């Protein structure tokens, strides 16, 4: 899995995030309007697209998009 592809999927989930603005270094909490609904959508994305379960406390520790991608990749590898 490539991070570019992941970012595309990530951006596709959110109408309110302009396409092409998310970078691996983007801090998730800095994304405008980011909230608990966005977090839930990320958990759903990880589940449906990658078959990975992300817990609430794991997601809280994640800072950047790169770290989120790494978390999903690591969990996927552990399966």
């Amino acid at each position, binding site marked *: 899995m490539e991070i570019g592809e992941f970012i595309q999927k990530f951006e596709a989930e959110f109408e309110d995030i302009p396409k092409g603005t998310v970078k691996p270094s983007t801090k998730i909490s800095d994304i405008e309007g980011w909230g608990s609904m966005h977090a839930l959508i990320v958990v*759903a994305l990880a589940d449906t697209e990658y078959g990975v379960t992300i817990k609430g406390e794991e997601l809280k520790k994640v800072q950047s998009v790169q770290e989120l991608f790494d978390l999903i990749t690591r969990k996927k590898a552990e399966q």
Partner: protein
Amino acid sequence: MAFFSIENIAIKGIAAAVPKQELSNWDYDFLTEQERKMLIKTIGVEKRRVVKDTGVTTLDLGKAAAEKLLQETNTAKEDIQILVFVSQTPDYYLPASSIILQDRLGLSKTCMAFDINLGCSGYVYGLSAISSLMSISKIKKGLLITGDISSQGAPREDKSVYPLFGDAATATLIEYEEGHEKTNFSLQSNGAGYEAIIVREGGMRKPLTRESFDIVEKEKGISRAPRNLELNGMEVFNFSVTEVPKNVDEFFNLTHTNPDSYDYFVMHQANLLMNETIRKKLKFPAEKVPYTLSKYGNTSSASIPLTIVSELRNKVSAPLSFLLAGFGVGLSWGTVSLKTSNLVCPEIIEM
């Protein structure tokens, strides 16, 4: 594994009652407009019915639904010999609401009655209990009442609970019918997740104190008192999208069925993102999966029968094959398959 089949039991009718008072999440100005839009799109709840200050309880809603159902199915009250009431918002700690309802409905004293303390899985569990008892005892007719007034436990300052729940109760008429096709159940529980949806204070573990009513900010947008309903959305989401498809897949194996075998898959109305994730995992086509989340929100154990009445009442005279799945607080979850024909579903009562 709690998988079993029950013979000679048929559902004859379902009625639902909701409070008149309607709240719209578009007016929920505790959130910004952008947050509201995002919330409604994600959880799918636009409107909810709430009892608010009317004094109406789950028992009252259940009574109205039951009376309407008995009337529309021409059922004599003395023929009802079992009444099961499923709720987590009963009138009293004790006695059980089912017993009060026996009297309020004018049912015979020969009718057995008891409560079951379950929420979102309650309709499926309730059906399993009443169907089993009726199948063994050959009791001819029974009523299953399910519902909650969950809105009462949610302060406006808790965005994780307040916009989600609506109030409703339903009544289902069940009859002993020799030769009716088998009803299949698969029921599960996991108490390790008991804190995922919980009212922490007011029970015997933590009796009410003055502080139980103090609303405290837990995180931004989430303030509640210890006696209020607390919900860990992420945990419930992960539980539901993992365990429900697993349970239903196993159910398919055991019953040699698949999504094509059913006319409708009616899920507990939890939240749209969660339910759609489950639907897609199970590969059920959208047209077989009705929703009432936008109209009524999450109505706990009333959500499955309420959805049948609201969305399918014009289709239920035909023979239908249903798959129903309830899941949530406990954690508790279960699936049932059943067949109906000439199901009586009167219009939703508003009170």
